[in-house]
């Protein structure tokens, strides 16, 4: 396996980690204003992701920085090209980060309501924007011979991408409500499960429409034929099984399978792209690939050694933080957020 392929896999892993982990805290942020009827309930909801969301977000930053180091042209083209979506994404991430941290610092009702909605918008926008971005990556965007994106903002907003955005947001919403069934107890837990039941249906419908649409909008069909391979099939099967598991109140399994859905879906997107990283809709010769967009072999070697030695340690201590805060949050307990 060449280092270019290895780095494509590392970036895929980082994005997968980001969507699986930050996916549920996006979901919690979206559902919190609706599920939480009282101030304490809203606090419980936010505290359920309190110790985790920041480290979850670093998966995205690492993916971006990894692209910069391993595929500078991918980083340069994507972020200068998807300029306004990235700008909105950054504003959204700023808003939610500050919202979680500041919300309960003061007790004015208006202050708290304001930050609740900032956290809502800041959690809803990123998965939608990522859905839009990934759909466009698969569909291809106008890229010229100098690797520059030459479409505008509205070029990115097409029906296919919008459906991708909605599907992604729903997926995160489902994942987040399932996470809540594991972190909360009593009434809130029951209502989170009920919400997951309803969201699960819509997510499944949306995702399957998206997959069908993908056959028309992307070169997935040309590339793999009618049988899409095991990854998307697994994604579909896990997604279908989630509502059954919710129904039988296997909360833990439902969460694991929704995590698998997200992981397999992300992997499918990257598998579809490979070995390209950005598809030019103008001329296949102008595609960015893991070869023409990459850093030199020396930099890739150094970065491979660094990433492969640091990432396992990250897995361990981040896993440990989930172990430390494994206990359900109780009504009446001390809350830090």
């Amino acid at each position: 396996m060449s280092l270019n392929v290895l780095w494509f896999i590392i970036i895929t892993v980082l994005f997968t980690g980001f969507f699986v982990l930050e996916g549920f805290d996006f979901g919690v942020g979206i559902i919190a204003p609706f599920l939480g009827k009282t101030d304490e309930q809203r606090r419980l909801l936010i505290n359920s992701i309190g110790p985790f969301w920041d480290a979850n977000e670093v998966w995205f930053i690492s993916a971006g920085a990894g692209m910069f180091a391993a595929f500078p042209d991918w980083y340069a083209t994507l972020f200068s090209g998807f300029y306004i979506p990235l700008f909105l994404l950054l504003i959204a991430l700023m808003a939610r980060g500050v919202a979680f941290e500041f919300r309960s610092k003061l007790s004015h009702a208006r202050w708290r309501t304001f930050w609740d909605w900032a956290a809502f918008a800041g959690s809803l926008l990123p998965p939608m924007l990522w859905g839009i971005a990934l759909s466009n990556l698969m569909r291809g965007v106008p890229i010229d011979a100098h690797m520059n994106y030459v479409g505008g903002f509205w070029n990115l907003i097409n029906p296919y991408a919008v459906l991708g955005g909605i599907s992604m947001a729903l997926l995160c919403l489902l994942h987040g409500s399932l996470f809540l069934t594991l972190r909360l107890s009593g009434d809130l837990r029951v209502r989170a499960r009920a919400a997951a039941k309803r969201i699960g249906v819509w997510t499944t419908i949306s995702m399957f429409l998206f997959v069908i649409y993908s056959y028309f909008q992307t070169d997935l069909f040309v590339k793999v034929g009618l049988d899409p391979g095991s990854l998307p099939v697994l994604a579909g099967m896990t997604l279908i099984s989630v509502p059954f598991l919710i129904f039988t109140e296997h909360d833990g399994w439902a969460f694991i399978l929704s995590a698998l859905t997200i992981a397999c879906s992300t992997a499918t997107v990257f598998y579809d792209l490979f070995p390209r990283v950005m598809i030019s809709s103008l001329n296949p010769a102008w595609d960015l690939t893991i070869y023409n967009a990459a850093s030199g072999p020396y930099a890739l070697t150094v970065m491979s050694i660094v990433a492969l030695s640091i990432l396992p340690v990250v897995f361990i201590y981040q896993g440990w933080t989930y172990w430390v805060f494994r206990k359900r949050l109780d009504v009446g307990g001390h809350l830090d957020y």
Partner: protein
Amino acid sequence: MWAVWLDRWQFGFTTVYHFLFVPLTIGLAFLISVMETMYVTKHDIMYRRMAQFWGKLFLINFALGVVTGIMQEFQFGMNWSNYSRFVGDVFGAPLAIESLAAFFLESAFIGTWLFGWDKLPPKIHVLSIWMVTIGVSLSAFWILTANSFMQEPVGYVMSHGRAHMNSFGALITNPQFRVEFPHVWFGALTTGSFFVAGVSAYYLLRRREIPLFAQSFRIAVYTGLIASVLVAVIGHAQGQHLIKAQPMKMAASEALWHTSPYHAPWSLVAWIDAKDHRNPFDIEIPYALSILSYNHTYGSVPGIEELQEQYVSKYGPGNYVPSVWVTFWTFRVMVLAGSLMIFLAMYGAFRGLRDDEGLAKRRQYLRIMPWAISLPFIANSTGWIMTEMGRQPWAVNGLLKTADSISPTVGVPLVWTTIIGFGIVYAAFAVVDVYLFVTFIKKGPDPERGPEEMDAEALQPAFEP
């Protein structure tokens, strides 16, 4: 030209803004680590309350440092895509390592620290805040490795019109980095120290929680004294390195239009006429520039015009002179702020030797200290403005000009959109941040969070032998 101008303004304001929070984060993380270590070793509940009080202020600040930092990670791609393509092979590596090694560490352990007071044994809990300190310091380490490459490119080879890394070792042993990192890191400690000392002074003046804040003050002022002196010592070494590595920045920071005489005098202040390349008004200290540059009373320092001629023959026609006015004055403001801090820290350290009451009685001095919180922020900002603007017209010294670094496809309207957008959001954050700081400082250490009896109870099992 408009696009370059806007891109530079955006980078400048977002980065200076981000760097208001970063040094305070590093400095406070270190000081809170020290306080909590004292709690764990001395078993004194006061230190726990101390760590929790400063921890609250730390978190308000940390949140903004984190969210403005996300922007930093991506704006190279947004507004500087040609730069990213040109140096990504070299410059991307330290950024990616920063994210993998530092951001994961600090974000995971800030979670266990904030939410783990009642869930983790004290020894593991204190380890969390040390991990945060290590994380934020590693972050500084790697981002300054990247910045040092821009000041003094090393460890690369040019091919196909781009820089490619050929020595990672050279990158992290960059002579520029060896002076830049400790200068910034000790500057961050100074920032945290002056913040803690200033806020403590506010309480001592009001005679609230005197034992807790007298001790906070001592921890801060001793750290601040050591750190601020080291900042100056390393800064001196930095200047001596600058004259070899970036003589134009040196000349500009001294408004030295022509190569100096053998015994170079140093301008304390000057009125600069950048059009006619002269200083109509100038207060000079004889020999001082030679001493600053070479540790001798002799040695001439190359001037702007001579260097400009040299660069034209080396790099082709163009203007290689940075804004002399900005470079000259930011340097002086930084040095003045730094000197004031050393002086205040020395006096405070001397006073800190007294008992709590003796300290609380120095009202004149205590009244100055809250205002002195501004000094490290002034020094940090002016220092960075000097070093970044003094490098112009280069983005990467001698390799890539700033004007050639921007994203060719991102037009002026787009940059206006984001500059206004980030401007509004950052301004709102600043208002909220200051409001929260003032509220929490006025409120003082939280009695609810730390009633002595309850904490003592919670403590019992952990410390029983």
